[in-house]
């Protein structure tokens, strides 16, 4: 279970700080929504460990993550864009999610190939991210997040700006992940995304 307990954060020039408080069970999706500047991305960055809260705590299976570095947290983020390393091939981008030194076994490589096939990108492994469309890039980013096998997925507007086919495919991928027990925190403006994916809504 992921518990966010009275997590308080404010930027230096911010008058009233944000206060986040919610709980999510594994295999569930919580959708966070609110106007621009309401703190959705800040919440994602706090959960991922990119920002340090002023007070409060984040608990995973009753263990505090507050002082854990991003690489020690059981989470993987997918943002709206800038998810991939532009100078590395699709294979390498995904492979880095499996092993940060790209020391991959043949089984890992098979998993990458199979994963690419499952998201409709068979044969795209040697391409650079710049050669892909927005939807294809998001599929690669999501595939990396899935193959990284972390129990929590942090998704910050991952489907924004994609065409309907790409959206449908990624939604199905996320539903599959939920079914396998992945906990999803989804920040989204889109009502349909929230309706299809979310089990609970957290309004900011």
């Amino acid at each position, binding site marked *: 279970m992921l518990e966010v307990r009275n997590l308080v954060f404010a930027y230096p020039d911010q008058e009233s700080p944000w206060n986040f408080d919610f709980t999510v069970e594994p295999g569930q999706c919580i959708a966070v929504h609110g106007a621009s500047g309401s703190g959705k991305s800040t919440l994602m960055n706090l959960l991922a460990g*990119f920002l340090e809260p002023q007070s409060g705590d984040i608990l995973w299976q009753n263990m505090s993550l507050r002082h854990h570095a991003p*690489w020690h947290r059981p989470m993987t983020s997918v943002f709206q864009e800038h998810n991939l*390393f532009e100078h590395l*091939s699709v294979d*390498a981008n995904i492979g880095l999610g499996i*092993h940060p030194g*790209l020391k991959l076994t043949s089984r890992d490589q098979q998993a990458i190939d199979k994963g690419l096939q499952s998201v409709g990108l068979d044969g795209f492994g040697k391409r650079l991210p710049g050669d892909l469309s927005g939807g294809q890039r998001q599929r690669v980013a999501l595939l990396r997040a899935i193959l990284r096998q972390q*129990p929590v997925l942090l998704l910050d507007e991952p489907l924004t700006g994609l065409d309907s086919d790409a959206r449908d495919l990624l939604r199905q991928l996320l539903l599959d992940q939920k079914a396998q027990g992945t906990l999803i925190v989804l920040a989204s403006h889109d009502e349909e995304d929230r309706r299809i994916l979310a089990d609970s809504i957290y309004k900011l």
Partner: protein
Amino acid sequence: MSSLAERQQHPLPSHSTPGRPAPFSRPGWQLWPGFAIAGALVLLSLAGLGALVWEASLPDISQLWQNRYLRTVVSFTIWQAFLSVLLSLLVAIPIARILARQPAFRGRAVLLRLMELSLVLPSIVAVSGLVSVYGRQGWFTGFASDWLGASWNLYGINGIVLAHVFFNAPLAARILLQATEGTPPSQLRVAAQLGLGRWWYWRAVEWPSIKPVLPGVAALVFTLCFTSFAIVMTLGGGPAATTIEVAIYQSLRFEFDSGQAALLAMVQLIICGFLWWLAARRGLTASLLPDRRVASHRTKAGSSPRARLADGTILGLFVLFLVMPLFAILIRGLPGMGSAFFPQGSFSANPALLDATMRSLAIALPAGLMAVCAALLILACGATSKRPAITRLTDVAAYLPLMIPPLVLGTGLFLLFRPSLGSSNEGLVLVTLINAMMALPFVLQMLKGPLGSLDSASRQQADQLGILGWYRWRWLHWPRMRKPLALAMAYGTGLSLGDFGVIALFGTPGQPTLPVLLYQQLGSYRMDAAAATGLWLVLLLLVLFSVFNQLGSPLHKTGFATKSPRSVPEPEHA
């Protein structure tokens, strides 16, 4: 893909990725080696200076204004540096403006590379080229006296300032061009739409972009001219035209007056240090080396055929100014190349030239490598540290070699290590160390940009994926750094290869490096041999740059990283 049950066996993994943590991933690995090197650099510099002051009985400071020689030396040093800055900027500003206005003429890229040559062309070689053009028997001097009836003496302040302008005007123009190219395209479009005339274009677009970097450029050129050694040694022409650096050399080498050398060194340190403190305080040192990317898309300010003709004429004169000495080195050196390698028609190679070449490379290659390694570690330390004191220490260490005269540093360190510095080979180790220190500020500037080019989104991704330490270097930095590193190595090695400062003090005449051999040949009026040695030195530099360029290019596709980064512009070298 694993199930929840499998994942919950390890609810909070000790590391989010399989296997051991990345090698060298502890922050200390990025912090402490660079901190140690920066600290050692500062300590070595201070210890060197301190040893000299300690050994010598420091003369009364009032000597500076009471002793006529010292007074002349200090005032001449300031005067020639001031004149050199003024003339260099007077040449550089119009050249930068023209190059910004004319973004697409044929040969622009070659000219820009040529302008960077001044960073590595050995002063002593350039001086031999300048002598061929502007000396007593020079082409230009002949032309000026035959056609214009003007007389001209290269030796003295004329030659010193001319050589300084030859070296520094292209460097300054390159930096100023970079500043003007940083003007937002929207501003250029507005200026083009409004049809601004030359004066208003200068006021509204060019001057605002040049103004912030101009004091920093002036400080850089002033420091380089203030501490110039080889040019003043060869073109100075007597006590009336002696700079502090040359006076230090004379004090140490001929007068054995280390007290006077220490006093002069401190004057230099105070003046250059104050200048750099001012520059660093106002953030002017951030972009003092030319970015090697060449902007190709730019909205042109409307220019009439007459204006284009004027631009072309000025650029042509500038190119002539740059190319003539280089051409002279080639023309005068080529005929002597055969006899330089195979003297008097013998088939056995000239041992003096080969030995000097090997000695130069034996000093320059380790010096380049040391400078690059030190620069990388210092940059990593500066980027990792959150303590302002450590960041400041790395900044000071980076620019200290520009302020302390290498001769003083060398002598101080020699005195410090004297009991264990016996043989000439050990002296050469000291020369290598000091050459590495001298190259450090330039190498550091070259690597700073590429090392910091990883955007925050990529850094966050890397953090989350556990791509730390060695893995981050291998997969994220190395593809961006490969070429800049090779380039920095080439510049570091090239600067040391052409060094004629520390080696003049510590080298033995019987074991010269190439610049020392060239100086000896010039001193004994063996002009053909000197020209050949000069050309050989330039060719060696070109070979060196080509080799490092090859080393910096990916040889073949390996594993995953199949292509060069497209989003990361990889600089080309001259």
